[in-house]
């Protein structure tokens, strides 16, 4: 027996409705529930790794800022040190130059003194030699002995007159 082409059959409607409900719950249980569970798990994993990445980025940024600050500080410190060292070196060099100058002046002074003493000694030596020589010359000239004291007085007078001339 066959139903009509456009027949509406209560039995078929009833069974079809039951079948529709069965398939609905089957799809819900066998397809949607497991797949949605896995999808939400994956979403959680993705969210977590995104959050981790964000945290890591923030940490890296903080570290970078700290590093930059430190670098800046170090640069300033080294510049300061360099400036100080330069100034110190300059002072030291000036000091050394001043020392050297004063030493040189002292040496010059000492040399001058030495020279002066040398001159005096040579002068006195010359004087004694000249006096002896003069006595001898005078003995020869005057053909007579005069005492040593007179000689020396005469020579002194002579030298002084010579020195005045000079």
């Amino acid at each position: 027996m066959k139903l009509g082409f456009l027949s509406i059959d209560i039995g078929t409607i009833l069974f079809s409705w039951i079948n529709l409900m069965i398939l609905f719950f089957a799809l819900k249980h066998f397809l949607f529930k497991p797949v949605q569970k896995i999808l939400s798990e994956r979403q959680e994993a993705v969210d977590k790794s995104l959050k981790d990445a964000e945290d890591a980025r923030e940490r890296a940024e903080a570290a970078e800022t700290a590093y930059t600050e430190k670098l800046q500080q170090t640069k300033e410190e080294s510049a300061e040190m360099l400036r100080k060292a330069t100034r110190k070196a300059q002072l030291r060099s000036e000091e050394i130059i001043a020392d050297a100058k004063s030493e040189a002046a002292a040496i010059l002074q000492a040399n001058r003194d030495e020279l002066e003493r040398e001159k005096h000694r040579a002068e006195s030596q010359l004087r004694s030699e000249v006096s002896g020589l003069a006595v001898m010359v005078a003995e020869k000239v005057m053909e007579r002995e005069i005492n040593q004291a007179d000689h020396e007085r005469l020579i002194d007078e002579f030298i002084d007159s010579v020195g005045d001339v000079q």
Partner: protein
Amino acid sequence: MKIPAFLQGSTELSVTGPKVLASFQIFGITINFTETVILEWIVMAVIIGLCIFLTRNLKVRNISKRQVIAEMAVEAITNLVRDTMGKRWLSFTPYIATVFCFSIFGSLISLFGVRAVTSDFSVLITWALMTFILITATKIKYGGVGGYLKGFADPIPVMLPINILSEVATPTAMALRHFGNIAGGSIIMGLIYFGLTSLSHMIRLQVPILTIGIPAVLSLYFDLFSDFMQAFIFIMLTMVFISNAGPSDDEAASSAA
């Protein structure tokens, strides 16, 4: 030479409903058990088997191709429901997916030479009634019974008969559209097979060789394309009617605020 029956092609053409396999009486009402129900069970077994196969051994990472298909299917139907109905109606997704799968597989089963489940008008009546029930339930949920009844006299009481008619027309039109397309397609295909068999016999071919190949091209439209189209249209109409029965997302958001 005697030609075996299965090689003789379609030598008769009849347009009938499904076979009745058993029939029994409950409270004086005749309940028929037709071949449609058996075919529905086959379709259901295929769909459920496919679901179990696809969702076996699901993982969060390193997913298999089967899992990709399952996830894509679920996401596609979820996105379709979200785009068509709105976020608040996502709980309807499994039902929409059920109707869609049932419709497609129920239509495509005709490719195996049996009656399509969807060429039984009673099946489409069932699905359309279900849509009607969901529409009405949604209207009552958001408007109350009074609001639902008052809707029939909207905008003026004179519109009452027209409103009732349009309320009834919705599921009727849906059922007839789907049934008409699939059943009509199968009748056309039957006519083509019958005609090609007759043509083969006319040019004295004992075996109807002309029925090889030519119907396949037409079957692409009348079976494959039409089946997908009708399943899609049916779920689209279901979604649109149900979501129109309640307030839209914007209205819900503004009333909640």
